[in-house]
Structures are given as C-alpha cells and as structure tokens.
C-alpha cells in the first residue's frame, strides 16, 4: 500500500518536472520568435499554444493514472 502512494507521488513529481522543462523550452522558443518577428506574433502564438497543450497532455495522463492508482489504496 505504501509503495503505491510513493509511486503516485514519484510519478506525478517526475512528470511535472519533465513537462515543466518541456513547456519552458516551447515557451522560450515561441516568445523569442515573437520578440524577433512581432508581425508573425499571432501565428507563432497559436502554434506555441498548440505545442504547450500537447505537452500538457503528457502530465494529465500521469495525473489520471495517479487517480486510478489512488483507488487501490484503502
């Protein structure tokens, strides 16, 4: 039982770490692009948001997995 709890904590923590780094990189690229080419800001903004959304899904899958595992702790 304790191992499941530790596993959930580790899974969500590590997923948060990875997705944080990944989203930071994506936002970095997008914002730099927007600063260099303000006239293309709208298109870059849309593409960056899409990239962020798909990165976020990785974390959410871990989150739901954690939920499912949480049902096993009693």
């Amino acid at each position: 039982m304790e191992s499941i709890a530790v596993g959930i904590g580790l899974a969500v923590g590590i997923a948060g770490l990875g997705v944080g780094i990944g989203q930071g990189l994506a936002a970095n690229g997008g914002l730099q692009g927007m600063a260099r080419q303000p006239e293309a800001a709208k298109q870059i903004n849309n593409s960056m948001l899409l990239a962020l959304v798909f990165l976020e899904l990785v974390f959410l899958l871990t989150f739901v997995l954690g939920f499912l595992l949480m049902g096993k702790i009693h």
Partner: protein
Amino acid sequence: MGLLLHSNLPLAAAAEGEGIGWNIFFYTGLTIAVVLGFAALARKGLNARVYTSLPSRLAEHLYLFLEGMTVNVIGPQGKKYVPFLLALWSFIFVGNIMGLLLAATPTADWSLNISMAIITVVYVQYEGIKQNGVLGHIKHFAGPRLGGAMVIISGLIFVVEIVSECMKLVSLSLRLYGNIEGGHIVRTSLDSIIAGIPIGGILLPIKFFTCIIQAFVWTILTCTYLSIATSHGDEGEHHEAHGDHEQHPAVIAAHA
C-alpha cells in the same frame, strides 16, 4: 488527506456511489440556462443602431475574438464554423466558472467531457465528408500520395491516422477533465491543511485563468481538426504552392 484517499474518478466514484452523480443534470442544465440567458440578453440589444447594451458588446467582442482565431487557423472559409465554436466556448467557459462559484462543475465530470468530445469529433468528420466526399475523406487519412512500393507506407499512415482520430476523443476529454478536476483537488487539499481556513482561495485567480485557457484550447483544437479535415479541397494546392504549409498550425497538430 482523507479527501484525497478515495478515488475521485467518475467511473470509480460511480461504482462507490460517490462523485457528482445525478447532480450533473442540474449543473449542466444550469450551465445551458446561463448561456442561453446571456444569448437572449445579447440578442435583445441587437436592434439598436449602435450596440449600447453590455451583453451585446461582450458577445460582439467574444464573436470577433473567435472569428479572428478561426480565420487565422482555417482561413476565410472557416467563418461558417464560428457559431459551433462559439457554442462550445461559452458552454465550457460557463461550466468551468461554475466550479469557482458553486460546489460542483459539470466539466469536472469525465462523462460530460467525453460526450462533448464525441460531438466535436463527429462534427469534424461530417464537415470533412461534406467538403471532400466520403472517398476523399477516407483518402486523406492515408497521407500524401506516394507511388510504387510506398503504398505500404500509406497503409501504415492510414492505421496511425485512424488511431490518432480515436485518441482525439481521449485527449480532448481528459485535458479538460484533468485541468478542472485537478484544480479542485489541489484546492480542497489546501483547504484541509488548517480546518476552517480556506487557504485554497489563493488559487482562485490561477483557476480563473485555467477556465479561460481550457475553453480557448478546446476551440482552437476543434479549429485545427477542422482545418485538417477540410483543407484538401480547393485550398490544399494553393497552400502548398505558396510553401506556407509547413508553418500551418494544423501541421504541428498532425505530428503531435
């Protein structure tokens, strides 16, 4: 901690007799009532020569914002999808906001989200078939036209595309569910640190931001799916000829 220990996932919760349960009908109805009431108020102001009533002006700004996004992603021919996207946006936004003010929210329940995702994906398929015909729509799953022995690759692309089409249901619904329900769980667990003091209230601004972003994300993804499904008509060659197909947001989504 006690709050966190039993599963809050709707399916598991339904088995244990917990979760939002039958209340979802009440909250969904309330959301629809708020959206329709706002629409009726906004419509009342349309008769004036200049829009002076506040609901009309808010609705106008919302419409222009969504129309700008749609034209940006799909192109000028995407304007006919704006009513559908506006309905999605307002329903999701009002549903999310309900979670900040009331005890429960319909969008934090996976069953409502998956039904909205089914509506979205089926509508996208319908529009794709309407634009390209049944054969053309099926053909576009196979990717670009490859000659000779590369037909095998086309078959593989076809299978992958079908799987990704089904995954759209899961990803759309889980994204909204995870974001909204996750925020609730963090708030309730923060509240339970000290009994009687709602510390979780400090999260309300960022939760409000999440509500807007999630409604926006659902609509922009629908836009992207629509632009992929309908782009192989007359405009397809036009885009490729100008070489701006690589920067198209739809392409990123197709590879993700």
